[in-house]
């Protein structure tokens, strides 16, 4: 259990340190006014990172595939697309009549529906045995991502000048947004928090679900029900985070693997440690991207998804190489 506590402490230390990095890349003790902005960035980065990492643990365990990750599976892009549709002018008239909480609920609901459609496609292709081989997984992810990407660009080009959207980049690389309402933040926190408790509750059974189905059943686990509970919760958690950040790649892939190196395969420890790692990693990446943005000529905002993509893609190649070598 000490590893779980230690990883939580590590996150606290990292989050504290990242409070020293300003939103314009300046480093130093924050003033009272920019402390609020930095705190929000650090907390959102932690929340989104934690959500993606815990979803990654679940997808990897339930699909019994080391390459599974909410981004690569297309779950993130499904959720992003749906959250984007929610902000379309067609719906905007209705949305403007809602209060902030209802608007935030609608966004989360759309993101969840999008994530479920994507995970449904994955699960259908996984077939009855519930196992996806690495190559099929990559193909499914490519297809879902490409489809969602095309659909996004189609909608975007038909509705140019969409005021509330963050532009084409939002879909391609996610980043942390500071213009969120308190309701959006609160709801994302609630969804991810509840999801974490549910996943911890079934974590012991997740260990058993990584066995062949007949063995898992003989150890007292209703595998079908568990898979559904775990996948739906992981999709909900992904959607909860992605709705406010856009798709941030590879956090959900890298963190479970790093955590596994420390605590092994036991989901009861892996889940909390990977979650703390996800929070730490994305907070660090966000602080780093703020520093990088300061160094750049244009002094622009660098989406944190750019950095995680740059670091995560080589890691993915390494895992793919290893999994095809082992077969």
């Amino acid at each position: 259990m000490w590893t779980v506590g230690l990883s939580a402490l590590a996150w606290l230390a990292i989050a504290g340190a990242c409070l020293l990095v300003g939103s314009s890349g300046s480093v130093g003790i924050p003033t009272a006014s920019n402390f609020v902005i930095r705190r929000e960035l650090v907390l959102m980065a932690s929340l989104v990172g934690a959500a993606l990492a815990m979803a990654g643990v679940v997808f990897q365990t339930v699909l019994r595939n080391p390459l599974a990750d909410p981004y690569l599976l297309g779950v993130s892009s499904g959720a992003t697309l749906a959250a984007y549709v929610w902000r379309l002018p067609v719906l905007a008239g209705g949305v403007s009549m809602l209060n902030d909480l209802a608007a935030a609920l609608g966004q989360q609901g759309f993101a969840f529906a999008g994530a479920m459609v994507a995970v449904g496609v994955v699960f259908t292709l996984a077939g009855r045995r519930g196992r996806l081989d690495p190559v099929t997984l990559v193909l499914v992810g490519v297809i879902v991502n490409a489809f969602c990407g095309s659909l996004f660009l189609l909608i975007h080009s038909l509705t140019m000048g969409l005021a509330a959207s963050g532009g084409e980049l939002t879909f391609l690389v996610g980043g942390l947004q500071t213009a969120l309402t308190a309701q959006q933040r609160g709801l994302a926190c609630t969804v991810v928090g509840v999801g974490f408790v549910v996943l911890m509750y079934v974590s012991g059974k997740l260990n058993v679900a990584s066995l062949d189905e007949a063995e898992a059943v003989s150890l007292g686990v209703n595998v079908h029900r568990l898979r559904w509970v775990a996948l739906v919760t992981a999709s909900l958690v992904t959607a909860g985070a992605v709705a406010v950040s856009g798709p941030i790649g590879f956090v959900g892939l890298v963190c479970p693997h790093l955590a596994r190196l420390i605590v092994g395969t036991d989901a009861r420890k892996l889940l909390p440690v990977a979650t703390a790692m996800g929070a730490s990693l994305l907070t660090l990446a966000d602080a780093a991207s703020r520093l990088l943005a300061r160094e750049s000529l244009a002094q622009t905002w660098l989406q944190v998804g750019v950095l995680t993509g740059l670091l995560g893609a080589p890691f993915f190649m390494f895992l793919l190489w290893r999994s095809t070598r082992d077969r």
Partner: protein
Amino acid sequence: MSLLHAQSLHFAYGPLRVLDDVSLDLAPGELVALLGPNGSGKSTLIKTLTGFLDTNGEVAWQGRSLRAWARADLARQVAYLPQAPSHSPGDRVVDVLRLGRSPYWGAFGVESSRDEEVVRRVASDLSLTDVLNRPMSELSGGRRQLVFVGRCLVQEPRAMLLDEPATFLDLRHQVELLRLLQKLTKEQSIGVLMASHDLNLTAAYADRLIVLHEGKIVAAGSRDDVLRAEILSPVYGVPMTRIERPGGAFVFPVVP
């Protein structure tokens, strides 16, 4: 009361009939061997007894119908070892053993001190204590199979259903495994039903033999009753001959 009572089991994969009116019993402390060629229905029979496959016959464990058992409760009574048992990549021996205690875990997978105690005891009984922290991938086939038998034992079951547990083992490990099973049945009164391909070796240790052919039980009884050329030749599709020895009967295929 018998540990297991199975009556009129039928099972088919689509039009393919795999089990045809199979009935059997298993008593506590009894080691029963399930013999028969590939595709005779041994694995399917075992999977219907675990409840993994639905059958329209009646299966009762300790007098209670399979359907009336909660899955986790049944997992504390009946352990199952498939032909190719699985574990997560990177698992250590202790991880695999611990998983056998999962039917006893509380909410959030919380273990009791007793769970740890049982794992240690079984590891010690099977001489696995010194390899507890070794990765499964570093173990020999014989040792690995012993770990999986250990996973069944930490369930503290009344019955064990083993699907060809000795298939990939060398002769010494096969004998060791059968001795262990015999010891478990006699000392702990566990009932064991095991599918096997090795007629003579299995017969030497089993209390009773059941021969399955094309989904039907074609013979059942003692070593002397079952190891007969006229029974086994048609079942395996090769001419067999029987040799009487002071310890019991043996059968061999007749090779030109």
